[in-house]
């Protein structure tokens, strides 16, 4: 049943990829940049949803892994003198390790308490980055990170982002559909029952947290490619809040929900913050509207809408 759903959706996925591949041919540089930002932000939100939507873990401060991935990559490139490509491995791996460490500390706590402690520890990471001026550049961040030629042009960075995002999204999808993913969703639904069928729930969740951290880190690395900069706000808690809203808005039970949510939020952020300085207020209103009117997100709503149509026929 699952594989047939996948086969039915595959043509759409391929069509979307082809359109995305053609974007630089007819879109302005700015829109290509914006699309790249949407893609990598969507990947970040999807990696959050891996543990939030599918794992039921209250990962409230996911931006930390995005930031660690970005800083890991930028620092590796600017400070080590080794091949810049190595930076794209170091960043995500560092994020995975931080994800594992924070996970180990928080996993004993249940749900909301997990989220609270995670926010504190994440803010600690942010504070270290913010204060450690000599190493991280403090609140200035790092600018003009030198990149390999092939990905330093506007189109090069776009295609790199598109390919890495597509591959990452595919890997995460496979993981959700794997036995590991089945067990993870079982734990989300019912942790006690999961343990009673022989699943070591905490250990499964720890691996999930590392994986989520890793792909959050991949998204951060991609930001370095697209924007050439890193700055501490990348791991500030407000971005984490935005990521959660993306998941809720797009639909945290649909695989592509967070990607759709990311597109909406990034576009709004780009255009609204041009008009008003009250972005946080707008965000709050969106959050409330989603909770009241679209509890299953945009895709959840569409899904139900389509099913109803089919049934009425």
């Amino acid at each position, binding site marked *: *049943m*699952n*594989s047939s759903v996948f086969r039915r959706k595959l043509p759409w996925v391929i069509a979307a990829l082809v359109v995305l591949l053609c974007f630089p041919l007819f879109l302005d540089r700015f829109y290509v940049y914006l699309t790249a930002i949407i893609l990598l932000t969507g990947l970040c939100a999807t990696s959050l949803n891996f543990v939030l939507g599918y794992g039921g873990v209250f990962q409230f401060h996911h931006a930390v892994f995005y930031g660690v991935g970005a800083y890991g990559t930028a620092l590796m490139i600017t400070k080590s003198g080794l091949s810049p490509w190595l930076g794209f491995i170091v960043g995500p791996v560092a994020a995975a390790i931080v994800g594992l460490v924070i996970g180990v500390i928080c996993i004993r706590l249940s749900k909301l308490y997990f989220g609270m402690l995670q926010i504190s520890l994440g803010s600690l990471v942010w504070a270290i980055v913010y204060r450690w001026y000599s190493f991280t550049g403090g609140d200035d961040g790092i600018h003009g990170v030198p990149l390999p030629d092939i990905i330093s042009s506007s189109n090069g960075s776009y295609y790199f982002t598109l390919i890495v995002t597509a591959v990452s999204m595919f890997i995460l999808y*496979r*993981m959700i*559909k*794997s*036995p*590991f*993913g*089945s*067990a993870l*969703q*079982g734990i*989300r*639904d*019912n942790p*006690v*029952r*999961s*343990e*009673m*069928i*022989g*699943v*070591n*729930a905490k250990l*499964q969740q720890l*691996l999930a947290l590392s994986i989520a951290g890793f792909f959050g880190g991949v998204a951060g690395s991609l930001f370095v490619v697209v924007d050439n900069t890193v700055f501490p706000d990348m791991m500030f808690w407000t971005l984490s809040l935005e990521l959660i809203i993306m998941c809720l808005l797009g639909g945290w*039970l649909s695989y592509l929900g967070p990607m759709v949510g990311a597109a909406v939020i990034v576009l709004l952020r780009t255009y609204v913050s041009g008009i008003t300085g009250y972005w946080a207020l707008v965000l709050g209103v969106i959050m409330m509207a989603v909770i009241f009117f679209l509890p299953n997100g945009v895709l959840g709503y569409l899904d139900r809408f389509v099913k109803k149509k089919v049934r009425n026929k």
Partner: protein
Amino acid sequence: MLEVTSLSKSFDGFKAVNNASLSVKEGEVVAVIGPNGAGKTTLFNLITGVLKPESGKVVFKGEDITGLPPYQVCRRGISRSFQVVNVFPKLSVFENVQVSVLSRQKRTWNLFTPSAKLAIAETDRILGDVGLMEIRDGTSAALSHGERKVLEIAIALGGNPEFLILDEPTAGMSPEETTRCIDLIKQLKEKLGITILFCEHDMEIVFSISDRIMVMVRGSTIIEGTCDDVRCCQEVQDAYLGGSDACLT
């Protein structure tokens, strides 16, 4: 096979289980009976590691399993169903059982093979055995209460257990569902050779399928014996069966 000795557990000073003892031999069907609040569910929680006992010992197949976490208990061959329905609400009926089978096959660390290709035959066989095949692809949240109770058992069977604990398996079922459920339990014993420990309110069911019975009142074991022993035991009648003088028949 299972040896429980003087197990105790209290909640805020209230002794929910107090010096309970129980033994189950391989191949037996043993019932635990007792009034509501006697501590039957708590006893099952202690055996399966959902709760940790304050004192006492649980030995399974010669191995001390006292206080092991549930997943360890399960991996040693003990599965259970819950009194309050406890399934995976967002998964389909099939997936509910499949995840249990996958877990027993130690596949939960497999990150890349699609689940849709694994454990299909075995999961379908279990669904067929318990009679849930027609609603295989429905979501478990949409099931009737009786169906969900059966799904409870099916999930437990996914672990291919040697020892099965059923907490009020027929509670809330319609008479037909109850009959089918009793048949199922009998088959599990006879065809699959599973040793069963269960608790149940309906005395007729208890007497019809149990080899032995343990009576629990206020957390303690009052008597453990054959159906006849229990039927005629004065203490049981006083404490539980309503205090009539005659032997129950």
